[in-house]
């Protein structure tokens, strides 16, 4: 009896193991591809579109869900499944998904990854949708920076230029003028810090992967890691000048804040500890939620040399569907979103400070009259202007094959660490960056 019981138990355990073995196997759900080009099968077939999302903010979630719900009312056969993917993991996860042939149908496409992903043939070209929506409705720089091989791979949704947020009240108190040069900016910061107890002149965004302050100042000083011809210029006099200024700025930041994440630095700024906070215009969302609009104003990062502006990040929908019905359905969803009335509603409800990329919104007075947007109209219009010549980190002169490697190598962070943490000379930091840049290029070229 005992022997039989033991045998039964062993058989059950073995069966459970077998089930566990096969439970991990699954096939991607989806209908078979329609063979006929331009088929309308997507209009009637049951389709589930997988959407990878990065942004957990309630405004974004609500605004996009409204768009999706409106689309699924028109096309009841289509479901949209949103899957949240952590911001820092999106590249890794997407690469692994492509290798496993389980990539999503579309995703939150961040500016820095579009060209590398497209070069790997992991994204679908979207020229047809852009033509249908009207290319002239989007900033040309965004279309250029998300194109490769003559094809476009992103439909931009919004952009967020970096500007200097400054304490209007302290400027008024000390009769300071909005600076137009780096020296004026530094002097204003020093004046406030010397006279206001507990308030520092600046903060610096320098967390790993977020070296935005340095990138901003390098760009407005016509410094870059690579020039237009992909020649290494990381140790140019302009780079040294930018690093020297950053090193000077770091003497006016709150102790212990170097290296903190953008979210933490924003918290420090909104608590009133700094006089200047250089960040994406989406910081206005924090200002709005803390009801501190009366304290903060903005101006562009002062230009020191050249014509390139500060960082202007952008994002949109990138499409990676391989099934032709899913691909067609996704394209129709994006077209639906960019209909003027739908897009206006989305732009008004989405993240405050993200400037709509489609001009049908910003050219419409109704957008600026919206109760959420209206208090920030001057701020956003100033940022919109500042963002016209903006750059994307790693793409100073447009996307190139080294862009993704530049971002993932943390080369800007190394320069910051050298001049601020290790107190090395800007010349040494720039030289080190040039050496590292050559190594990065060698790495990419030899892959």
């Amino acid at each position, binding site marked *: 009896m005992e022997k039989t019981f033991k045998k039964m138990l*062993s*058989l059950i355990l*073995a069966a459970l193991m077998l089930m*566990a*073995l096969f439970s991990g196997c699954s096939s991607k759900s989806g209908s078979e591809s329609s063979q006929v080009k331009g088929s309308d099968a997507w209009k009637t077939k049951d389709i589930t579109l997988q959407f990878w999302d990065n942004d957990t903010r309630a405004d974004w979630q609500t605004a996009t869900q409204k768009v999706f719900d409106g689309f699924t009312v028109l096309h009841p056969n289509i479901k949209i499944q949103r899957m949240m993917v952590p911001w820092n993991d999106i590249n890794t996860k997407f690469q692994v998904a492509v290798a496993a042939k389980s990539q999503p149908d579309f995703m939150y496409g961040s500016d820095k990854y579009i060209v590398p992903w497209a070069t*790997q*043939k992991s994204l679908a070209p979207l020229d047809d949708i852009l033509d249908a929506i009207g290319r002239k409705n989007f900033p040309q720089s965004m279309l250029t920076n998300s194109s490769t091989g003559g094809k476009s791979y992103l439909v931009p949704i919004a952009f967020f230029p970096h500007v200097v947020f400054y304490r209007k009240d302290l400027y008024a108190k000390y009769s300071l003028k909005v600076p137009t040069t780096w020296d004026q900016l530094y002097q204003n910061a020093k004046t406030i810090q010397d006279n206001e107890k507990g308030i520092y002149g600046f903060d610096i965004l320098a967390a790993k992967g977020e070296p935005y302050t340095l990138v901003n100042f390098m760009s407005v000083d016509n410094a870059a890691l690579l020039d237009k011809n992909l020649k290494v210029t990381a140790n140019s006099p302009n780079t040294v000048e930018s690093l020297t200024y950053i090193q000077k700025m770091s003497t006016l930041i709150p102790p212990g804040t170097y290296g903190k994440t953008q979210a933490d630095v924003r918290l420090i700024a909104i608590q009133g500890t700094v006089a200047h906070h250089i960040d994406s215009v989406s910081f206005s969302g924090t200002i709005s939620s803390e009801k501190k609009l009366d304290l903060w104003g903005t101006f562009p990062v002062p230009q020191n040399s050249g014509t390139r502006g500060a960082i202007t990040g952008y994002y949109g929908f990138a499409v990676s569907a391989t099934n032709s019905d899913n691909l067609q359905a996704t394209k129709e969803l994006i077209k639906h979103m960019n209909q003027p009335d739908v897009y206006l509603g989305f732009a008004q409800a989405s993240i405050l400070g993200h400037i709509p990329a489609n001009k049908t919104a910003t050219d419409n007075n109704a957008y600026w009259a919206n109760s959420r947007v209206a208090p920030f109209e001057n701020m956003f219009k100033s940022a919109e202007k500042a963002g016209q010549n903006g750059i994307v980190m790693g793409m100073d002169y447009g996307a190139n094959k080294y862009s993704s490697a530049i971002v993932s*190598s*943390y080369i800007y962070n190394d320069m910051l660490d050298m001049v601020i943490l*290790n107190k090395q000379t800007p010349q040494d930091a720039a030289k080190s960056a040039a050496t590292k840049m050559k190594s990065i290029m060698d790495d990419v070229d030899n892959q």
Partner: protein
Amino acid sequence: MGIGKYERRKRGYSLEKQKAKMGVLMLLPSLIIISFIILYPLISSFVFAFMKKPLGSMSNDKFIGLKNFAYIFIQPLFWKSLLNSTILTFATVVLQTIFGMIIALLLNTSFKARGVIRGLFILPWATPAFVAAFAWSWMVDSQNGMINILLKQFHLVKEGIPWLMQTNTALFIVILAHIWKDIPWVIMIFLSGLQMVPVESREAAKVDGANIWKEFWYITIPSMKSIIVIAILLRVIWTFKYFDLVKLLTGGGPLNSTMTIPIMIYQQAFESNSLGRASALGVILFVILGVFSFFYFKVLSKDGEA
């Protein structure tokens, strides 16, 4: 007529064979799973190490021989990572062994609430790596970290030290975190080893006038020799390939001062998108750890024979 001896042996042998077949059948699911989870990735890694294989690309892979290895060996970062891995492993294992033994000896004595105290010592080992890394990064925070607050309290420093942000202190903290995390395992192994020390030998040593140190050196250590060697070898293997804490605490920075081989493998695979080079690094790591594993099995088999 009864069954002959030959018949009885034949039937017994068939029964044994049947049982063996049944056993193999029961083991088959586990063996299949192990093959998929361990053997298949291992063999794939070895194959990829000799190929140009970008991660996520739809393009064709290419056999390139030893080029991945040649590329890795000329990178200064590889040698720096190897050095950091060696320092991390050596320092961690030596200190874990010394302090693990001291704590095990103390926990082996009789005192009140010994069971509770022993249980508390297991806690770091039971703490998930993410939680441990989070706790350590807050403990060493330059403004609000407990360590800096204490240092300032005792006037040992004027301003908080950004331990994880400085190239000359980051690796030190990573080593400390590793010691804290895994010393419970060492303590447990040594505690069980201490139970094997013959009581008669210790008593005889006491009678002969041996002091605590002589008893430890001439009785305890020789009795526990194989356990100590096995513990050290296992700790070396596990620490050398440790990824979690380093990735979570520093990610290999600042300025590659805590870059280790496992972190470099991750970076090559998921940041440089080169599966080929990541696999080549994996093969190198496999060879290094294989040497220690060889000694481990040698000691184990000697111990078994004894």
